[in-house]
């Protein structure tokens, strides 16, 4: 769902930059107290794993395909602040080094994949992990990618390039990623389950008690 340059009207691109700038700035401030000998390598490895996993395009014959995005996964494993930093690094490197996603549109891509995907995923996981942890991880992966896709759908739909057909863009993005999100949720739940059983102490999103409303950044 990387937005290329030329898709967003300038004022929308600007709003996205503002939103992601505020959220990332807050994440940097909060992350200062959270990093240490064990968490810094975890930040690096989760971010690198998300980058590598995003390169694996799922071949779905005859239809719409996608790849793992991983914001919810990063949010669950790292907590919201380090999760935002990990995804910010991935999305920025993709845009600068690989031309994946635009430069002017980078604010929009950061907002969708590094802010909304992380925060919604983290919030869903926190809200439902009391019911069932694996189920909560699945719901986080699925729900977060769907909400992120809706945000992108609104952003491009309000732009002139898409003829202001916001209904069309929102439904294509929402339905498309709600279906593909089932795979996102399954991968999130599977890897979460593995890490949580092998090294439960590394699942930082479990312990963080800092209250964070899912509306932040939305």
């Amino acid at each position, binding site marked *: 769902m990387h937005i290329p340059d030329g898709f967003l009207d300038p004022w929308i691109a600007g709003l996205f930059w503002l939103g992601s700038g505020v959220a990332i700035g807050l994440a940097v401030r909060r992350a200062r107290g959270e990093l240490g000998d064990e968490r810094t390598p975890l930040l690096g490895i989760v971010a*690198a794993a998300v980058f590598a996993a995003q390169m694996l395009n799922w071949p779905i014959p005859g239809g719409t395909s996608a790849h793992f995005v991983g914001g919810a996964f990063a949010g669950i494993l790292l907590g919201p602040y380090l999760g935002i930093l990990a995804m910010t690094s991935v999305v920025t490197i993709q845009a600068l080094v690989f*031309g994946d996603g*635009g430069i002017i549109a980078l604010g929009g891509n950061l907002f969708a994949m590094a802010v909304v995907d992380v925060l919604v995923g983290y919030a869903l996981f926190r809200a439902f992990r009391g019911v069932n942890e694996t189920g909560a991880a699945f719901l986080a992966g699925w729900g977060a990618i769907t909400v992120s896709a809706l945000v992108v759908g609104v952003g491009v739909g309000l732009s002139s390039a898409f003829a202001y057909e916001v209904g069309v863009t929102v439904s294509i993005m929402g339905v498309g990623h709600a279906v593909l999100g089932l795979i996102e949720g399954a991968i999130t739940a599977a890897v979460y389950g593995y890490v949580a059983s092998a090294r439960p102490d590394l699942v930082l999103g479990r312990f963080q008690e800092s209250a964070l409303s899912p509306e932040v950044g939305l």
Partner: protein
Amino acid sequence: MNAVSTEPWVRRALLGLLVLVVLAPLFGWAAGTVGYAEPLENAAEETGAADAASQLNAGVLPDYSVPGLGSSLGTAVSAAVGTGLTLAVCLGLGRLLAQ
């Protein structure tokens, strides 16, 4: 980096990263054979926005390829470089913010 590489979970995780990097060209080839199209591209087709996309910055490794290298090899190099770079940037960022 010393403290990082001695931790058993870190070594296992790095091995996992290597597996993902090796898988990248395979998935790239498979996605290429079935025709890869994301919902955003479909939405752009539907509303006539497809031609509006412009490339302001192609990047050093445009679209995860290495100019002059074959597509599978280019994807493998891109996966290795990108994964390593992301790891290095985040380790650096983590150190910087921990101070």
